[in-house]
């Protein structure tokens, strides 16, 4: 159990774009950090430790913890780097939570960032696969996702049109988020007419490549209330890894998110997640995941994901809005992406999400997903945890 309860007291993001030639990596990081400090009305002197991460082979800089201090403010402070592939941003959030929950640090600055425009994303992601057994055939992130979608479609009869409805939702939501990269609505026809990348995934079914950074400030219960009147309490976190070789995956279901969510529901006493959770920021790198993973999360029964999406329940104003920010399909600075989910969930709980605010959020979930079948999850709440 945690020694101290932990709250998010400030967040900051850059305006995420496909290319940021105007700043180097440290300067990009600094934009997010300065915004988070302003949001919390703190200065860098108030920060006790820094946790930072990205996909370090994306920029070819292998000592990011040290190299980034000009931007992170980590000069002469404890700094730890965490990097776990696609889940890097959510692992950063979990790592920051652990540092504060342990009682060792009172205020921790958590930073995720990426400059995807500085290398070949697919080449770099391919290094996530086993070089002897899997890498010669599989390539990049999209192959694994396509295999998942195919397996799910064969099992439950879902269609490309069902998936397109998820892209349409997220891209519509993104129009409410000034930080999102892709802020233009699309139609189902647009998705289906976009180039097929890896059957059944079209270009408009998947995330873009983005330059951007996100910073989150976490504080212990001893000072969180002094920093902000609307802290976002982190109730609990969970993380599951599943496979070494791609052939070990239970394709068509995401076991890691299923188990992580059950751990979280059990810890928090949540019996009916669909009714008790008010909003989800889902690390959903492609549209089919918006159908499959809400089943694995226990929001709807197996095979009922598409029906729930078509009902509008996950749209803004629906029963359980998913990705009010526009999610990963609208914006994906990979090392920051998971932390953006966490920051966006925090904004929802704090009531600071502006045009993308879901009313009366008591519980929010943010998730992370990585290369390709592991999961992180955080439960955010308005009320201080009672454990």
């Amino acid at each position: 159990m945690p020694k101290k309860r932990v709250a998010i007291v400030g967040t900051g993001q850059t305006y995420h774009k496909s290319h940021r030639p105007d700043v180097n990596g440290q300067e990009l990081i600094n934009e997010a950090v300065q915004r988070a400090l302003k949001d919390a009305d703190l200065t860098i002197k108030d920060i006790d430790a820094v946790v930072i991460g990205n996909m370090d082979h994306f920029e070819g800089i292998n000592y990011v913890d040290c190299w980034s201090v000009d931007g992170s403010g980590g000069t002469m402070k404890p700094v730890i780097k965490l990097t776990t592939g696609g889940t890097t941003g959510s692992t950063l959030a979990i790592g920051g939570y652990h540092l504060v929950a342990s009682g060792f640090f009172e205020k921790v600055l958590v930073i995720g960032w990426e400059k995807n425009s500085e290398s070949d994303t697919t080449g770099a992601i391919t290094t996530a696969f086993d070089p002897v057994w899997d890498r010669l055939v599989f390539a990049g992130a999209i192959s694994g996702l396509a295999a998942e979608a195919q397996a799910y479609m064969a099992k439950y009869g879902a269609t490309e049109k069902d998936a397109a409805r998820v892209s349409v939702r997220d891209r519509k939501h993104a129009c409410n988020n000034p930080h999102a990269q892709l802020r233009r609505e699309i139609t189902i026809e647009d998705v289906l007419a976009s180039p097929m990348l890896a059957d059944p995934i079209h270009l408009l079914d998947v995330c873009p490549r983005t330059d951007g950074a996100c910073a989150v400030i976490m504080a212990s219960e001893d000072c969180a209330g002094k920093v902000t009147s609307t802290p976002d309490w982190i109730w609990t976190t969970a993380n599951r890894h599943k496979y070494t070789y791609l052939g070990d995956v239970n394709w068509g279901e995401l076991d890691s998110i299923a188990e992580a969510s059950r751990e979280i529901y059990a810890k928090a006493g949540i019996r009916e997640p669909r009714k008790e959770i008010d909003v989800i920021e889902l690390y959903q790198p492609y549209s089919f995941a918006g159908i499959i993973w809400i089943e694995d999360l226990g929001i709807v029964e197996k095979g009922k994901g598409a029906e729930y999406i078509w009902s509008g329940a996950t749209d803004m104003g629906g029963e359980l809005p998913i990705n009010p920010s526009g999610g990963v399909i609208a914006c994906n600075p990979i090392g920051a992406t998971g932390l953006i989910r966490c920051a966006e969930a925090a904004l929802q709980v704090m009531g600071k999400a502006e045009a993308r605010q879901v009313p009366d959020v008591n519980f929010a979930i943010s998730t992370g997903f990585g290369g390709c079948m592991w999961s992180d999850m955080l439960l955010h709440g308005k009320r201080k945890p009672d454990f």
Partner: protein
Amino acid sequence: MTDIFSDVEPMVFKSRINVPYAWWTGETAERFFLALRDDKKIMGTRCPVCEKVFVPPRKVCPLCFHEKMAWVEVSSEGVLESFTIVKRQLAALTRKAPVIFGLIKLDGADTSILHYIENPGHEDIKIGTRVAAKFNEERSGSMQDIACFRPIS
């Protein structure tokens, strides 16, 4: 190496991927490189709070987090803070060994820059030696626009 493999058939898979990198300098470093290329000037940024002058220039003071840094020109001469003579031809070297790596604190700056030191015909480089930049005639906007630093009396 061949001895190790004399009794075995090595089973190795070669990587098929190539990850090329290209880094944006950002507008702050760009201004430094353009002044170097076009005017043979070395620019730094000064923090109005701690009054330190940073070369390479920083957009934000890394110590104070102050965002309004002022541009200042520093001298192309300075003092050798430390150095080493590299005698082995390492793969990353762009010049033929031996080469001297030096850390040079330019007059007017509070931080040092890393560059080659040349001292033709002499080995008597010492910490504290005063050095001056030797600019290349052809300049393209990188640290290589300075050929090296040389001792001055």
